[in-house]
């Protein structure tokens, strides 16, 4: 199979929308990132802004991401829940509208890991991140155009640079806060897990009036990367994000995302399994209530098996009500020679009323003959028999529905390995569901 790029736009300078988008940005010169930024900007200009007719933008209207500047947002409305993972012993990095706040953060020294921030490190010569910044994002553009990823590499000024060399005793917690109700925020994390090293990265909070993040994750041989993100339950939230991961031989990559509310969010994940016996799992639980305005959540995943005996799992669950819209586009590509691949994908939506909708597009593309790949996608409503069973035992209707939704989400949540983290997330879900019952 030829890895032909499908960068189909003729856009460039002829596109007034693109010109306006670029004109509104303040492009940093960059330090060690300068060449990567320049190349990314050229990629972005060549790709242009996405349009509704593009293969991977048919279900999600890109106009809010394409707009030159975001509409101001009510950032005081961060929802009733307190921050997650507060009781955990972890190393905190706080970003305010995408800019590192050293005073609010912990000391970045932790055994087994080197932590820097992009803005602070950019000027250093010979920094390890120089070889990684923008490279996985660029590779992730090979098969499907991801213009906002390229844009991020070109304009992001800050983010976490994490190089894991051992097994740090505490998770690293990236915390986002909002300050400016019209901020257009770009942040870019680079994470390298060296051979045999292991880390857990947590990410919570909200940022800006519009956010755009890129996380590049390079998990080297035998390394383990656990990633858990949980977005605060504020009602207004507009964001695009992309995870670009490379998983080497015997390495483990696991990412779980929890999204509660929001306006429009799109998470893209591009995961390349490049070494034998590697494992890559990506999961998401989404609870969307359209009661306070539009809600749309889009998970767009592309996993490539390029080596033998790789295992991949995509587990995405969406609970939608009051006209909320859920989108899942997930692909498994098995390259020639990637024998004994075990690929699994499930996307399910639970619609709590008839106004909500789920659009799913599973794709399998397989060029090896000894593989096991399966996918499933379902859309359903609350099962009346189960509901009656619970109520007949005395469980009130509202509580019974909460239990049933938690039951529906259980497979996605099971992708969080750490039991105490899983319980905290489960409690958060429970609280949200109880309020929205």
């Amino acid at each position, binding site marked *: 199979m030829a890895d032909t790029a499908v960068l189909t736009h003729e856009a460039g300078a002829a596109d007034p929308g693109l010109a306006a988008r670029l004109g509104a940005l303040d492009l940093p010169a960059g330090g060690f990132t300068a060449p990567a930024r320049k190349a990314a900007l050229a990629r972005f200009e060549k790709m242009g802004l996405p349009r509704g007719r593009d293969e991977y933008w048919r279900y999600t209207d890109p106009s809010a991401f394409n707009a030159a500047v975001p509409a101001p947002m009510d950032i005081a409305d961060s929802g009733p829940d307190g921050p997650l993972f507060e009781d955990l012993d972890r190393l905190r990095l706080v970003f305010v509208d995408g800019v590192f706040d050293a005073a609010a953060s912990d000391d970045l020294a932790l055994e087994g890991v080197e932590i820097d921030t992009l803005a602070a490190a950019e000027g250093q010569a010979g920094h390890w991140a120089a070889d990684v910044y923008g490279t996985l994002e660029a590779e992730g553009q090979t098969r499907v155009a991801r213009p906002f990823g390229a844009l991020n590499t070109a304009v992001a000024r800050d983010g976490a640079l994490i190089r894991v060399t051992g097994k740090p005793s505490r998770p690293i917690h990236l915390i986002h806060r909002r300050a400016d109700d019209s901020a257009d925020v770009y942040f870019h994390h680079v994470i390298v897990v060296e051979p045999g090293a292991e880390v857990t990265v947590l990410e919570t909070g909200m940022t800006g009036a519009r956010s755009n993040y890129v996380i590049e994750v390079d998990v080297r041989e035998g390394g383990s990367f656990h990633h858990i993100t949980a977005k605060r339950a504020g009602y207004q939230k507009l964001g695009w994000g992309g995870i670009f991961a490379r998983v080497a031989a015997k390495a483990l990559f696991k990412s779980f995302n929890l999204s509660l509310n929001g306006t429009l969010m799109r998470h893209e994940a591009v995961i390349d399994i490049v070494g034998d016996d590697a494992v890559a799992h990506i999961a998401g639980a989404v609870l969307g209530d359209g009661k306070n305005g539009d809600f749309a959540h889009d998970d767009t995943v592309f996993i490539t098996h390029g080596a033998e005996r790789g295992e991949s799992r995509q587990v995405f669950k969406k609970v939608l009500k009051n006209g909320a819209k859920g989108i899942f586009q997930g692909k498994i590509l098995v390259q020639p020679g990637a024998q004994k691949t075990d690929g699994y994908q499930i996307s399910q939506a639970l619609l709590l009323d008839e106004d909500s909708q789920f659009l799913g597009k599973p794709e399998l593309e397989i060029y090896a003959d000894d593989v096991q790949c399966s996918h499933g996608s379902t859309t359903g409503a609350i*099962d*009346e*028999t*189960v509901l*009656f*069973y*619970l*109520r*007949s*035992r*005395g*469980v*009130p*209707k509202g*509580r*019974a529905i909460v*239990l*049933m939704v*938690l*039951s*529906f*989400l*259980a*497979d996605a*949540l099971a992708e969080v390995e750490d039991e105490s983290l899983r319980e905290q997330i489960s409690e958060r879900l429970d609280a949200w569901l109880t309020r929205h019952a």
Partner: protein
Amino acid sequence: MLKIENLHAKLEDEGKQILKGVTLEVPAGEVHAIMGPNGSGKSTLSYVLSGRDGYEVTEGEATLNGEDLLEQEPEERAAAGLFLAFQYPVEIPGVGNLTFLRTAVNAQRKARGEEELSAADFLKVVREKAKSLDIDADMLKRPVNVGFSGGEKKRNEILQMAMLEPKMCIMDETDSGLDVDAMRLVAKGVNALRAPDRSFLVITHYQRLLDHIQPDVVHIMADGRIVRTGGPELALEVEKNGYADILAAEAG
């Protein structure tokens, strides 16, 4: 305890009349059996009494200790002391059996204005009751009914009954899908719960369950009505001659 008078009910969607005037009284402490051919309305009666959606009561009434059942939500009927053991207990993946049981027990206690059971007290009681039903710790931890055998599911129903301590237990074809050993175990669990202030309505096709759970009264149901009421000997008569004779006699 349970008093049903001239109860009529139809399927909401199809408008089909299923119950056509059921009258029945189960006094405190008694075990009554309802037998009848397929389609006679036995299961519908259990659903209408416990409040399942999809049925419309068109006439008649049903009370539990004088309280009108039919106006209440299913959870209110449960808190008032009604329990339905399902013919096909449902599986609930991702919800642990213990969590489910504790949620149910405490929801009922709360609805009755009683103090909720602490986790420790609850565990102590549930372990004790589970043991007598041959339900091991693993079954308690697993998601509700997921991967349970037919017998395990029915034993789990009896465990719920034992934990919720209802006043009026309706058992909908609890014997279906059970082998003799499993049936004995279930019957033992039920017999252990028999008490002067607790009544049972046992719905079954066959007499064999009634060998293990001895009824005080047997009702024969056909075409949405109770057509005959008698002692335990009525079940034996059905076993010997089938329903045809009884129905013919009633029709004649």
